[in-house]
């Protein structure tokens, strides 16, 4: 919920500008003061917008830094603590935007392809449900499962498989 203080500051600044306008005195002076107040309000809005944008950028950078991939245990669609931590960084960034969200679910190569297609979707849905529970509109999210068709690591063995059991945020 890190975006709230920023929005709050912006509202405070706007309110202050409006008070300046309301408290101003006689005609020409009033006009000058009104113009000054309007300019101040505009500057305040710009500052707020700049600050909000900077904060949004900071959140997005933080989300980018943790990566857009959430990993899963074998045969599981439960979110790991690592996945939750990564996901939280993205959620605060996504709350400040309205962009569509695509979640691509993947599995390792073990098991049948169509069953893995369903497991990949289950993983995507786990991430989606966590996002929705944390305030992201469900209408923004599309889950697409690739099953085992798009491995990151081609070889066999757990060191490869663990890299492939994942959901990617696009």
């Amino acid at each position, binding site marked *: 919920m890190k975006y709230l203080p920023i929005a709050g500051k912006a509202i405070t600044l706007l309110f202050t500008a409006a008070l300046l306008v309301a408290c101003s005195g006689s005609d020409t002076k009033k006009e000058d003061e009104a113009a000054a107040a309007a300019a101040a309000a505009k500057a305040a809005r710009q500052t707020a917008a700049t600050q909000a944008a900077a904060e949004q950028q900071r959140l997005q950078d933080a989300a980018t830094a943790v990566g857009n991939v959430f990993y899963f245990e074998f045969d599981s669609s439960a979110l790991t603590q690592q996945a939750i931590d990564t996901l939280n960084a993205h959620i605060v960034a996504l709350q400040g935007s309205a962009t569509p969200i695509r979640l691509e679910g993947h599995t390792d190569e073990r*098991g049948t392809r169509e069953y893995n297609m*369903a497991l990949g979707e289950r993983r995507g849905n786990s991430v989606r449900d966590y996002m929705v529970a944390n305030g992201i509109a469900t209408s923004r999210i599309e889950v*697409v499962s690739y099953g085992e*068709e798009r491995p990151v690591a081609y070889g066999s063995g757990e060191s490869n498989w663990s890299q492939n059991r994942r959901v990617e945020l696009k």
Partner: protein
Amino acid sequence: MKWLVYVVLNVVLVLSARAELTIEITQGVDNPTDIAVVPFAWQGPGSSPEDIAAVIDGDLARSGQFAPVGRADMLGRPTTGAEVFYRDWRALDTEYLLIGRVSVAGQMRIEYELFDVLRQTSVYSGVETGPVNEARMLGHRVADAVYEKLTGIRGAFATRLLYVSVTRVRGGNDYSRLTLADSDGARPIVLLESREPVLAPAWSPDGQEIAYVSFETSRPAIFRQNLATGQREQLTNFKGLNGAPSWSPDGNTMAMVLSKDGNPDIYLMDLASKRLTRITRHYAIDTEPAWMPDGKSLLFTSDRGGRPQIYRYNLRSATTERVTFEGTYNARARVAQDGRNVVIVHQRDGRFHIALLDLVTNRLQILTSTELDESPSIAPNGSMVLYATKYADRGILAAVSVDGDVKFRLPAREGDVREPAWSPYMSR
């Protein structure tokens, strides 16, 4: 075991320079039938466009039930009955002898005759005619006739395979190619090439059409394609899974998996009206539908019991019963035409094998010994199971007979090969 040694040492048949798959026979039956397939006489202009005898020889060898005589060992090369000297073939312990002649008059015409060397008599003769560019298919038909005459089982060499071959692209999207080939992997034709995944190829019961899943729209969709005309139709475009198409035996309905209503369930699409009927309603995963040959029920995979197992849905009674109980992972059933033998993916000790389930006795027999085996597809005559596995860290196709006695591999020259689908018998 003479045969086994012979195949391991000698038989790496490279079928054709342009063939994408090769054949490596790794295990045959203990006492295969010795047969000599003499090079057929070419009676047309120039040289023969295809070595028909080699096609037949390869088919019979691949069945594992025959041990063809090497050409270098042949003491004579008869092409007519009058030229057959039985003593030449008895000297090689040959039990049967196949000779033939190929001519072209508009169409290709193959005349052939099968001899019993011990009884010194002609036992079968026949003629195959067809377009010159289908010469290999004509050879496969001769092999079908010989196979049926000598084993009593209808041959399935004059059939085709669908499979997906993949060229890996590190750091980018792989190339997927949906490929159609002869049953021996020869004459591969790429039907679809995509940088997005292609999977789950399936045949229409008449062998004229195929269905598959393609991600070319950036999400999965089921397509239907006519092989003769190339005409293509996108059947589904639902949110979520669109997968596992399976044509009903009467050709009118397609079973599929959709998750548009929340989680993966089996649906039936009437192909004329495109109307959908949902046949499973469960919060678990229901997937991989496979029709029984009588069209009255379907097998499918479900983890409604906690682990994936095979279930059977009866269309008339709308009831579901569990079919597999042995082991913690049984999935992706395919049913033989006898409605009794079912091939599945079965996990044991962490390894995935192809297993044969007898629906009458409920006996489960593991057919393969490798560990990442999947996508079993059964020949229309029920004799062989084609499947995908990993060999030297690459995806390859392999085959095993339903009794487990015969095994061969079809590795690709490059890339990974997977998802084989053996065609039904092809109409002429």
